[in-house]
């Protein structure tokens, strides 16, 4: 029994599949929650790293670059274990779910930092020069010239990373987060039938990512390519 | 009267509803040097691209060297050509492109020898000999081992000509060979094409905007307009005494422009 639902192993594969579907969907809810929370952490951390990497002083930009490279080039699983065990060793005891989202956020902050930077750098230098020629303040230039042009460029990339994060959430099951794959594994462990739950998880994932990628593509197509119109 | 080596018979080419070639009748005799002129969109490049089988026709029949190009005769009727037939027909033709289209990852030598070795199955030594002769002819012997990106546009186009000639085609198609070149590089390419025209019995079909050159090398000039041959004749007739108003307008615009 899991989440208050029990499985039916005595009426064939189909009955078994139907009986565990609600359990897997409960797991899916956790998967989606973790994705969104992890993505939020990645967005915030990534922005901080993007700013630090672009800092005029090398004493700031080089360490920031090193740290993001380090985050990018080391496995999520190991980062997760590090946070889970090492923080606890130093007296910081976080719930497993929170640790997991933090690990996702750390791993993906390296990628989102790049997206922020690429989005801003993709704006032609002439735009900045024109703003300076018109004597706009730095703040006005950023909020009215840079951001409206950069945002539509970066949204599809962020969307794709959100989909990637969803596919990485199962790693969180190793620290006892009951997301969809972890739930399926438990059902398998107890019924000795891994085939049905794991195949169902695969199927649900396929639907989820196809739908999400479709949304990202749709959003990408409907974005104003020349920037958010300001009137 | 010799049989024409190229014969278009009521050839239609459409893109959707846009008619590019409009029941075109057009002949070229063996060894003849024909230049096609005309406004853009008149279908002149399309004629070459259809001959090279880069584009299909919508209707009509084309004969090349006595055989239907886009069709095969089976049981006395014409059927759409098989890939094997197209391959056989393509061997009769060579093409020089406006944008050269050299293979950027191959040296000049390999650009020229790759097809003879792999398509004609020539021994490597023979293909290299042939390439060296051709490079000598186009004046690029010292550049054999360079990559296309190391050459000027004019040099690249001369390699393009050598590459097409290495397949020993009976008919050479030149699709605006100098249009992509800086003005000072046009001459060297025209010189190569000119000497080719003077010294070989190749059949040549040329689309160009270089009117003075067309006048020098061509046996015949065809003025294309709206997918048809509007007027044709010797260079003398077309340039000095055009009959059609459209031809006069076009020549006036080109020669003064």
């Amino acid at each position, binding site marked *: 029994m899991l989440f208050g639902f029990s499985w039916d192993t005595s009426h064939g594969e189909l009955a078994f599949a139907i009986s565990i579907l609600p359990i897997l969907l409960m797991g899916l809810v956790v998967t989606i929650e973790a994705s969104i929370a992890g993505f939020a952490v990645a967005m915030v951390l990534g922005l901080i790293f993007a700013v630090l990497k672009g800092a005029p002083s090398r004493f700031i930009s080089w360490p920031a670059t090193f740290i993001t490279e380090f985050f990018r080039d080391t496995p999520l699983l190991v980062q997760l274990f590090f946070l889970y065990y090492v923080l606890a060793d130093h007296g910081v005891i976080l719930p497993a779910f929170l640790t997991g989202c933090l690990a996702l956020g750390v791993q993906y902050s390296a990628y989102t930092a790049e997206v922020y930077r690429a989005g801003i750098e993709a704006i032609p230098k002439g735009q900045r020069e024109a703003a300076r020629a018109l004597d706009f303040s730095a703040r006005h230039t950023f909020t009215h010239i840079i951001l409206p042009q950069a945002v539509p460029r970066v949204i599809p990339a962020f969307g794709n990373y959100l989909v990637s994060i969803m596919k990485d959430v199962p790693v969180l099951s190793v620290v006892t987060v009951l997301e969809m*794959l972890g739930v399926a*594994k438990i059902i398998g462990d107890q019924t000795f039938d891994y085939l049905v739950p794991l195949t169902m998880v695969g199927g649900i994932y396929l639907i989820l990512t*196809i739908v999400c990628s479709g949304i990202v593509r749709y959003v990408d197509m409907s974005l104003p390519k020349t920037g958010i119109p300001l009137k | 009267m010799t049989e024409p080596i190229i014969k278009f018979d009521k050839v239609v080419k459409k893109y959707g509803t846009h008619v590019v070639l409009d029941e075109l009748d057009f002949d070229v005799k063996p060894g003849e040097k024909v230049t096609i002129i005309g406004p853009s969109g008149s279908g002149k490049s399309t004629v070459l691209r259809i001959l090279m089988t880069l584009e299909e026709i919508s209707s009509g029949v084309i004969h090349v060297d006595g055989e239907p190009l886009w069709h095969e005769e089976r049981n006395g009727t014409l059927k759409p050509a098989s890939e094997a037939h197209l391959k056989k027909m393509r061997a009769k033709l060579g093409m020089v492109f406006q944008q050269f289209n050299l293979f950027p990852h191959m040296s000049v030598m390999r650009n020229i020898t*790759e097809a003879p070795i792999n398509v004609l199955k020539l021994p490597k030594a023979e293909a290299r000999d042939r390439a060296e002769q051709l490079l000598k002819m186009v004046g690029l012997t010292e550049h054999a081992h360079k990559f296309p*990106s190391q050459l000027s546009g004019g040099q690249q186009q001369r390699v393009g000509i050598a590459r097409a000639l290495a397949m020993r085609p009976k008919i050479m198609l030149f699709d605006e060979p100098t249009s992509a070149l800086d003005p000072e590089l046009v001459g060297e390419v025209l010189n190569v094409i000119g000497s080719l025209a003077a010294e070989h019995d190749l059949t040549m079909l040329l689309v160009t905007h270089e009117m003075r050159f067309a006048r020098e090398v061509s046996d015949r000039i065809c003025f294309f307009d709206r997918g048809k041959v509007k007027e044709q004749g010797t260079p003398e007739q077309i340039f000095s005494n055009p009959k059609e108003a459209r031809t006069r307008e076009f020549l006036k615009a080109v020669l003064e422009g």
Partner: protein
Amino acid sequence: MEWSEYLKPLSQGAWITIQLTVYSTIVGAICSFAFGIGKLSTNWAIKGFSIAYIEIFRGTSLLVQLFWLYFALPIAGDAIGIDLRLPPVAAGVLALGLNIGAYGAEVVRGAIQSVRYSQYEAAKALNFSPRQALWRIALPQAIPEMMPAFGNLAVQNLKDTALASLISLGDLAFVAERIRNFTQDSTTVYTMILFMYFGMALVIAGLMHLLERAVGRWRRVGH
């Protein structure tokens, strides 16, 4: 235990990680080309199979694939009377390779499609067959285009090998977990393996960069 005493077991784990990375990258590279080219095929069966492979392996999670191959496949085999039990190393290499291959296939397809159409026309005018045009003209131009993305995928693959520890393969992550269990010295051991993975990633990135230079020599010569 001193940190230096961890080095021997960790280096043994690292060796397993390296082997996993190399084998699965080879499987991945083969899948990338086979299905990337397959997706461009005019044969609908080949095209359909390639698309299905790419969508399934990109659309589901690697860990799901790994568990499926290791836990579920034997049961599927039982049902049809074939022994499909895979040793952990085979399941690991297969899952990692098939997963990264699906991403690589999209890279290969994109790079081939980025070769200009006029190159195919030139090949056709010289009477190359479509197959010759692909292998002699398009692919050599597409491969340098693929290299930066392949470099990222190879590093991704290295990172993904850590998941193989979850099906009890004795790789770096697995050994670290065992040492932690034994010594409770998690800070030292996890810091060490983070840097070991980082070092290996830098080596892979460097090697891929050298490979990129080697296959793209013609792109760097200029006037």
